[in-house]
């Protein structure tokens, strides 16, 4: 079988696994990176969000073969950055994280959005996070948190 090579959290990795495996399963089962969650398993809830080449993707419908040669970053690595600290503090201050299961995905989607658009409008935040479901907050607190992060972290994105 072909080896799949890519960078995972900035480290080169080479795997001999079935390339049709979901990236989500490879992250959780093989690498024990359990920050990415399985919610719906069909691309509708965003709990499995990771970054590929800096853009948010649903790792539950991403075959391992499609990350060959690409850069994958999970919440575990992103948590080491300043931008994460700003987002984390903003989610904390605005009550944007309650039960917490959607939070890693929300943070990754927010990072992807702010990467492309450092000063998003309300509507742009809602679209940027439209693939991420939250059953606790009613979303307004999360939208406020992203606004706050964009403001407090100005210059970081």
């Amino acid at each position, binding site marked *: *079988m*072909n080896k*799949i090579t890519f960078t995972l959290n900035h480290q080169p990795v080479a795997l001999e696994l*079935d*390339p*049709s*495996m*979901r990236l989500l*399963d490879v992250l959780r*089962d093989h690498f024990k990176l359990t920050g990415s969650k*399985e919610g719906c*398993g*069909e*691309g*509708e809830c*965003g709990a499995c*969000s990771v970054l*590929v080449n800096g*853009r*948010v*993707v*649903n790792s*539950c*419908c*991403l*075959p391992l*073969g*499609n990350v*060959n*040669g*690409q850069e994958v970053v999970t919440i575990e690595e992103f948590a080491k950055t300043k931008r994460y600290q700003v987002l984390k503090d903003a989610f904390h201050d605005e009550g944007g994280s309650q039960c917490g299961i959607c939070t890693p995905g929300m943070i990754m*989607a927010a990072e*992807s*959005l702010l990467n492309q658009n450092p000063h998003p409008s309300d509507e742009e935040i809602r*679209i*940027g996070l*439209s*693939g*991420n479901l939250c059953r606790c907050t009613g979303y307004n607190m999360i939208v406020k948190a992203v606004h706050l992060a964009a403001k407090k972290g100005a210059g970081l994105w």
Partner: protein
Amino acid sequence: MVRHIIPKTLQEALTYLSEGTFKIMAGGTDLMIQKRSTAGLPPKIGQDVIYLFNLAELRYVSRGDGYLKIGAMTPLEDIYHHPDTPELLKKVIYEMASPGIRHMATMAGNIGNASPAGDSLVALYVLDARIKLQSISGERILPISDVIIGVRKTIIRPDELIAEILIPVDNFNVIVWRKVGGRRADAISKVSFAALIKRNAEVIKDIRIAFGAVSPTVVRSRQIEAELNGKSITELRNMLPSILEKYATAIRPIDDQRSSAHYRRQVASNMLRHLIEKEI
């Protein structure tokens, strides 16, 4: 033993396709869900798979020969952000799925999947898009309506891949897209509707209307459109009952988990009525 091939070049991909029968993996956003098994296990694809998503040769948006040319593996989000993408297509992509899916999903995937509810297909029908199918022995360029022939059925041969989508560069006075779904993001259409119109002050010069998710394939009737072209706007409005009736016989909606045939028929009719009464 099922083979998994990740070709590095288009030529290599075409060679593999000429020698065996493969399931083509584009962005994976439909296929991975259709073939999903339990968590931790690979999907049940059950045949050789070829992964084309990262083929750089199929990732581009460019203009030439009067067409906007979209490389088959270009993610929807990149098509959306390209300055030359037609406004109708932007409207459609904007309401498809969510950013995480749009970073992976491709229009070629939408075509190859040939779901009656594939949103980008409705736009491609009214835009008169053409599809370039390529094999080791050559290429053929066909109208989208000749490529898709039924529910999940296309005329694409096992040795062919979708290489490019060609959209004629054109301008329209009226550009309408309506998607009816359970929610704004991540919804599969219950009914969808696209219309493009060229008109001068009084007269319709070119009207194109298509419905999605109400028949095995997208419904666009060139015959009905031909009867409407050249009419004044007043004449068109006076013809409304007969226009509604003609399209009512052209569509064949079904009951399924997302909606009912009755609802789809009524909403399709309402959208067409609204176009003619209010939007032309």
